[in-house]
């Protein structure tokens, strides 16, 4: 394998990680369809899910072109095995209650907004810069929306506060993985394709601290941080998620409408 091919492979892998984050979280949000607590949030959740799905499509299509084996966005989204998905564990966590869903969205968007801003400003890949410019605005809205909800639930009734505190206890341990660079990512950073996620830590900490202060929430000490998604090691819910996500393409290969 020559150097150019190696770069191509790692670029493909690094972009797949991003695309999988977007697809899996977008799918999780789509599971709220018809189950949201109020009509206003029904639409808000679906809107956010569709934003993420749109980002995933653009990223898969770009990754497929870089790979150069003729795989389409559908092939990449629907026809891989569980171990080939490289999303972080946070995005695949089950929805839980509305508090957990909003907190998960806050954690993710507080990372992705500055991430896409950095890609738009400094990636040497023109297509990625274009995807990033659009995605940054979408993530800014997700951050604002989920942040406002976390504040209102944390600083709300006794029940909403206790549910939000439970969500923090459950989900905070998955946030460390956002800042880790897989080997593919490390190559992509060295090649100038993507920013180093660790460089976004300070801003993420600041965002979360300010929301938590307004929400009267405490940032927990995480003794055992959870990771593994970037290596394809997923939680037990991931198989169920993929079964539903992939069902149509598996049952009716090549179908379209």
């Amino acid at each position, binding site marked *: 394998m020559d150097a150019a091919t190696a770069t191509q492979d790692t670029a493909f892998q690094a972009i797949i990680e991003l695309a999988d984050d977007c697809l899996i979280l977008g799918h999780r949000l789509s599971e709220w369809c018809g189950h949201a607590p109020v*009509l206003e949030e029904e639409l*808000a959740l679906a809107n956010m899910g569709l934003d993420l799905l749109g980002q995933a499509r653009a990223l898969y299509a770009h990754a497929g072109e870089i790979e150069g084996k003729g795989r389409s966005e559908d092939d990449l989204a629907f026809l891989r095995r569980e171990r080939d998905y490289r999303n972080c564990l946070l995005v695949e966590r089950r929805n839980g209650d509305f508090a957990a869903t909003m907190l998960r969205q806050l954690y993710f968007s507080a990372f992705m907004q500055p991430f896409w801003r950095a890609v738009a400003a400094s990636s040497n890949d023109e297509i990625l810069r274009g995807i990033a410019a659009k995605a940054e605005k979408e993530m800014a809205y997700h951050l604002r*929306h989920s942040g406002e909800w976390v504040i*209102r639930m944390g600083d709300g009734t006794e029940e909403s506060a206790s549910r939000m505190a439970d969500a923090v206890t459950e989900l905070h341990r998955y946030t460390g993985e956002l800042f880790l660079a897989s080997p593919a990512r490390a190559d992509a950073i060295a090649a100038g394709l993507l920013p180093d996620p660790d460089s976004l830590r300070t801003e993420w900490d600041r965002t979360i601290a300010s929301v938590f202060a307004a929400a009267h929430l405490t940032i927990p000490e995480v003794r055992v941080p959870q990771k593994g998604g970037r290596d394809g090691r997923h939680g037990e819910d991931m198989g169920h998620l993929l079964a539903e996500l992939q069902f149509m393409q598996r049952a009716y290969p090549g179908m379209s409408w």
Partner: protein
Amino acid sequence: MTTENLTPLWEVFIRPRNGLHHRHVGSLHAADSDMALQAARDVYTRRGEGNSIWVVRSAEISASDPSFAEPMFEPADDKIYRHPTFYDIPDEVGHM
């Protein structure tokens, strides 16, 4: 039911383009004005309908009394001289 009681109703006004007025488009439930603006964005501007949103608590709106409609509006019916239809408008003026 409980959400109805706890979250107030808001009226939503959207301005479709610069230079046009905000127009009433509907209503929604939200806990406060920040959340009402976000909900309005998600419910009423999904297809690019607007570039500015106003929300106002429905309870803050004072409405005219339908049973008082005759005294309110009929006196204007026979005052056709209030419509500026007696002037010749030069073609160059265009649509007014």
